[in-house]
C-alpha cells in the first residue's frame, strides 16, 4: 500500500480495495519497524489513529465520507493537538499538552484524515538539518549518514520512507521546501496568509506558514484545498476564496513563461544540482514553455535581513516560556530571576538561545534602526524584486538548495548552515508561494527543483509542478530503505 500516492490511496479507499483501518495499521506497522533508524516521529498515536480510521470507515459505509476520509497523515510537532503532546522539538515543551487544536488540525479532522502522530523537527523550527531537536537528529532515508534537512525534517523523512503518505510541515525560511528537496518529495509553502497560523507554535510570526509535504504535486493540491482558507482566529489569514487546486492541475503549459533568476545559479551551487535543475527546465521547454533569465538583484541581502527579522520576532515569541505557567520549570528556584534564568537555560537548546540573543540585541535601544528598521527596508526591496520579475514571467525556477543533503554533523559553523537557505529565505520575506519537486539525484541523494509564483498563485504552481511529474518519474522513486527496513 505504501507505494501508492495519497491520491491513489484515496481512490483505493473509495473503491473499497482496502479499509482505512487496514491502511492505518499498515503504516503504523511500518513506523514501528523502521522509525528506530530514522527517528522521524516524536509521538506515535496508534490507538487514536485506529479509532479515527474506524470512524472514517463507518462514514465511508454510510456514504458520508469526504474524498480524503481515512487517509493517514502525520503532523510536524509544531501543530498544537488537543490531548497529544506538542513539544516543538524542545525540552521546554516536553510536558506540554495544548487544550486546543491548531486550525490546520481541525480542518484535517473535519476532512476525516487520520493522524498517525507528531513528527520530529528542529527545536522551535530553528534549523536546516533537523540536528537541533531535543529528541535527537532525524536520518535521511536515502542515506542514513545524511541529514533530512530542516526544520520539517521528520515530516520529510517519514514521507520519503513510506511511513506515512503525506505530512504537514511549516516553512519560515525554507523549512518545507529544503527537507522536501533533501528527501526527494514534493513540498509546498503557500502564500503568507493562505493557511491559518492559529495553533502553530510561533517562530517568526511574519514569515511562518504551514503547508503539505507529500509524494506528488497532486497530493499537495488535495491537502492544500483542505487546510487553506480564512480563520477568524488568525488576523493575518486572508479572506480570499480558496480555488479548486485539483481541477486546474491539468491545464496545458504551452506559452508558460519561466524566469531563471541569475542570482540562483551563481557561486556555491553544486554542479550536479545545477545540472538537474537545467535538465528540468528543458523538460518544461519540451512542454511548450519559454525560458528567459531574470534578475532578483537583492537576493544576497535576504539571509542577513532574515537573520535580523526572524530572531527579533522569535526573541519576543519565545518570552512566554518562562517557567511560570507551563513548560519546563527548573527545580527549587530561589527567586524569580533564578526561576527565569535556569528554566530558560535548561529548557532551550543552543541554536534557540543563539537566535534569542541575536533578536534581543537587534531590537535593543541604539541598535533597532540599524538592524530591524533596515532589515524591513531590505525586505520591501526583496519583495519588489519578485513583483518586478512576475511582470515579465509567470513562474521562477531554480534549485531549492545549493547542495544535496549533507552529512550529519558536517556543518558545525552556524553561518555555513544559514547559507543553506539562500534560495528559500527570500520567498518567505516576500510572502510568495514556492514548491519543491524532485528533479534528480547527486551521488544518490535527491535534488529539488524550486518553482516560485506570485502571491496566491498556488494553483498555478501546483499545475506547473504536476505537469512536470506527468512527464518525469523522479517523484515516484523510493529509497531502498523503504523496502529494506519497513
Amino acid at each position: 500500500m505504501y507505494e501508492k500516492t495519497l491520491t491513489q490511496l484515496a481512490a483505493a479507499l473509495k473503491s473499497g480495495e482496502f479499509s482505512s483501518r487496514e491502511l492505518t495499521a499498515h503504516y503504523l506497522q511500518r513506523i514501528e519497524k523502521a522509525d528506530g533508524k530514522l527517528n522521524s516521529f516524536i509521538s506515535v498515536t496508534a490507538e487514536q489513529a485506529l479509532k479515527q480510521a474506524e470512524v472514517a470507515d463507518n462514514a465511508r459505509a454510510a456514504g458520508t465520507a469526504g474524498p480524503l476520509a481515512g487517509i493517514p497523515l502525520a503532523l510536524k510537532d509544531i501543530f498544537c493537538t488537543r490531548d497529544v503532546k506538542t513539544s516543538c522539538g524542545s525540552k521546554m515543551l516536553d510536558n506540554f499538552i495544548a487544550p486546543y487544536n491548531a486550525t490546520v488540525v481541525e480542518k484535517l479532522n473535519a476532512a476525516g484524515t487520520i493522524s498517525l502522530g507528531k513528527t520530529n523537527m528542529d527545536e522551535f523550527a530553528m534549523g536546516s538539518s533537523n540536528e537541533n531537536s531535543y529528541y535527537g537528529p532525524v536520518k535521511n532515508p536515502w542515506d542514513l549518514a545524511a541529514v533530512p534537512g530542516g526544520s520539517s525534517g521528520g515530516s520529510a523523512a517519514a514521507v520519503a520512507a513510506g511511513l506515512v503518505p503525506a505530512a504537514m510541515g511549516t516553512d519560515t525560511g525554507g523549512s518545507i521546501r529544503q527537507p522536501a528537496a533533501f528527501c526527494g518529495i514534493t513540498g509546498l509553502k503557500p502564500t503568507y496568509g493562505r493557511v491559518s497560523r492559529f495553533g502553530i507554535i510561533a517562530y517568526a510570526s511574519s514569515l511562518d506558514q504551514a503547508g503539505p509535504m507529500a509524494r506528488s504535486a497532486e497530493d499537495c493540491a488535495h491537502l492544500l484545498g483542505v487546510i487553506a482558507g480564512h480563520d477568524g482566529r488568525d488576523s493575518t489569514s486572508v479572506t480570499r476564496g480558496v480555488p479548486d487546486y485539483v481541477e486546474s492541475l491539468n491545464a496545458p503549459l504551452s506559452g508558460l513563461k519561466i524566469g531563471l533568476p541569475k542570482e540562483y545559479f551563481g557561486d556555491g551551487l553544486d554542479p550536479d544540482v545545477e545540472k538537474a535543475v537545467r535538465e528540468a527546465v528543458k523538460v518544461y521547454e519540451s512542454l511548450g514553455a519559454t525560458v528567459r533569465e531574470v534578475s532578483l538583484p537583492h537576493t544576497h541581502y535576504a539571509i542577513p535581513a532574515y537573520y535580523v527579522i526572524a530572531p527579533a520576532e522569535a526573541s519576543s515569541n519565545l518570552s512566554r516560556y518562562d517557567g511560570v505557567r507551563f513548560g519546563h520549570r527548573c527545580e527549587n528556584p530561589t527567586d524569580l530571576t533564578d526561576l527565569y534564568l535556569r528554566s530558560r537555560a535548561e529548557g532551550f537548546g543552543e541554536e534557540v538561545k543563539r537566535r534569542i540573543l541575536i533578536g534581543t540585541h537587534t531590537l535593543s535601544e541604539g541598535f533597532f534602526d540599524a538592524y530591524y528598521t533596515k532589515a524591513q527596508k531590505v525586505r520591501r526591496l526583496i519583495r519588489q524584486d519578485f513583483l518586478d520579475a512576475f511582470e515579465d514571467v509567470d513562474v521562477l525556477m531554480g534549485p531549492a538548495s545549493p547542495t544535496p543533503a549533507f552529512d550529519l554533523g558536517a556543518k558545525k559553523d552556524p553561518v555555513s548552515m544559514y547559507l543553506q537557505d539562500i534560495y528559500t529565505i527570500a520567498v518567505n520575506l516576500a510572502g510568495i508561494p514556492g514548491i519543491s519537486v524532485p528533479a534528480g539525484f547527486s551521488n544518490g541523494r535527491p535534488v529539488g527543483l524550486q518553482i516560485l509564483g506570485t502571491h496566491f498563485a498556488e494553483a498555478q504552481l501546483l499545475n506547473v509542478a504536476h505537469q512536470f511529474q506527468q512527464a518525469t518519474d523522479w517523484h515516484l522513486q523510493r529509497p531502498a530503505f523503504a523496502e529494506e527496513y519497513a
Partner: protein
Amino acid sequence: MQWETVIGLEVHVQLATRSKIFSGASTAFGAEPNTQACAVDLGLPGVLPVLNEQAVAMAVQFGLAVHADIAEVSVFDRKNYFYPDLPKGYQTSQMYHPIVGPGEVEITLEDGSTKRIRIHHAHLEEDAGKSLHEDFHGMTGIDLNRAGTPLLEIVSEPDMRSSKEAAAYLKAIHSIVTYLGISDGNMAEGSMRCDVNVSVRRTSQDPLGTRAEIKNVNSFRFVERAIAFEVERQIELIEDGGSVVQETRLFDPDRDETRSMRTKEEANDYRYFPCPDLLPVVLDQAYLDHLRGQLPELPADKRERFQNELGLSAYDANVISASRDMAEFFEAVHSVCGDAKQSANWVQGELSGALNRENLSIANSPISARQLGELISRVLDDTINGKAAKEVFQALWNGQGESADEVIDAKGLKQVTDTGAIEAMIDQVIADSPAQVAQYRDSEPEKRGKMIGYFVGQVMKASRGTANPQQVNGLLKEKLDALL
C-alpha cells in the same frame, strides 16, 4: 523664592468592552482568580490575538470628543519585558503609531475660569494580570483575569501648573469617558489609573526641569496629595543644592509620601517592535463619520448650554455637567418644572445631600426626575411653600406616595392662600397672645419688625405650616398696626 510646577498626566482608562481586547474572555470585575482567562490571555503556545472592534470604536470616540486627529493607520507594537503577571513576556501596545493623535481638553477651575490642556496622544493597549503577595506562604499568586483587558492610555502635554489643575484635568477626562460610556470610570476598582509626571523650575522661561514619574495614583485626592508632596520634595532638594534625578516613584497614601521605585539607569529596555500577529488598523472617513454621529452631547457643550441658554451660574453649570447622570437628571427635572435655577438648586442641594447620606449614585435615586420636577412645580405655582416642599421630598424619598400631588393631598400640605382663612387664624393668635400684643404696642417702631416673627411662627403653627408665609406676614403687620 517662587517656583513653577509643571505636570503631565498619563491616564489609563479601562474600556467598558464586554470581552478582552484580543480574546473572547469576559472583562467583568471581581471573578474568582483565573476563571476569566482563556488560552490567549494565558499566552499559551500557538494562540493568536484578534482585535476587539469595540475597543477601537471606543478609542475613536474618545479621540473625537477631545477634537483629536484620528490616525488613518495605527499599529500595535510589542513592549517586551519579563514579569510573572505578563503572560506572553510582552504587552501589546501602540508605541509608534497610536490611534488617537494630538487633541485638547478644557478644564474648569474652582474660580470658574477655564484652561485648555493639550493631549499628546492616546493609544490602545492590553492590561497585565495581578500579582498577589499575601496568603501564599511566602510565594506569589498570579491572577490573570485582568490580563488582556483593554486600556486607553491618554497622555497629556506638560500643560498643568498646579495640583488643582491636575485634579481638574483628571475630572475632565473622567467626565468625558463616562459621558461617552466607554468606561465606568470606577477608580476604586482600577478602571481609571494615573501616572503623574512632575517637575519644577524657577520661572516659566526656564527649560523644563528633570521630572519624576509617580506611578499608579488611584484617586482624585491622591493626585493632589502626591503632587503636593513631590513638588515640596523637589524644591527642597534643589534649594539644598541637590538635583532631581529622573526616576519612577510610588505614592504611598498611608504615609502621604512618594518613594523611589527605580531610576532611569535601572529602567527596562522594552525593545518595542510592530506586533506581527496583528494587522495595522485602517480607519476610513465613513467609519469616523458614523462614530461622530453617535457622540452624545459632551460635558463642555452641556456646560456652555446650561450657562448660556438656561442661565445657570458658571459654578452650577460646571458641577452639574461634570457627571452625565447628574446632567441628564437635571435636564429631566427641568423639562418637567421649567425652572432651571430651581432644578439646579434641588438637584445639587436636597437631592445630592440625601444621596450622599445614603451613599447612593444619582442613577439609583429613590426619587425620579419626574417626581422632583412636579414637586418643584408645586412650589412654583404656590401650591406648597418651601417648608412643606421639604416634607414632600422626604415622603417621596421614603416611598410614601407616587407623586408630589398625592403626598400633598394625603398630608394636607396644600398652602392656604385664602385671605379670610388666614385672617381668622391671625385673629385667633392675637386674641390668644395679649401679653405679646402689649409688648409689641409698647415697643419702639424700629424694634417691632423683629417682634413680628413670634406672631408669624404662631400662625404658621396654627396652619400646620400650610399658610402662605408672605400673606401671613403682610396681614399680620396690617392687623397689629391697626391695634396701635
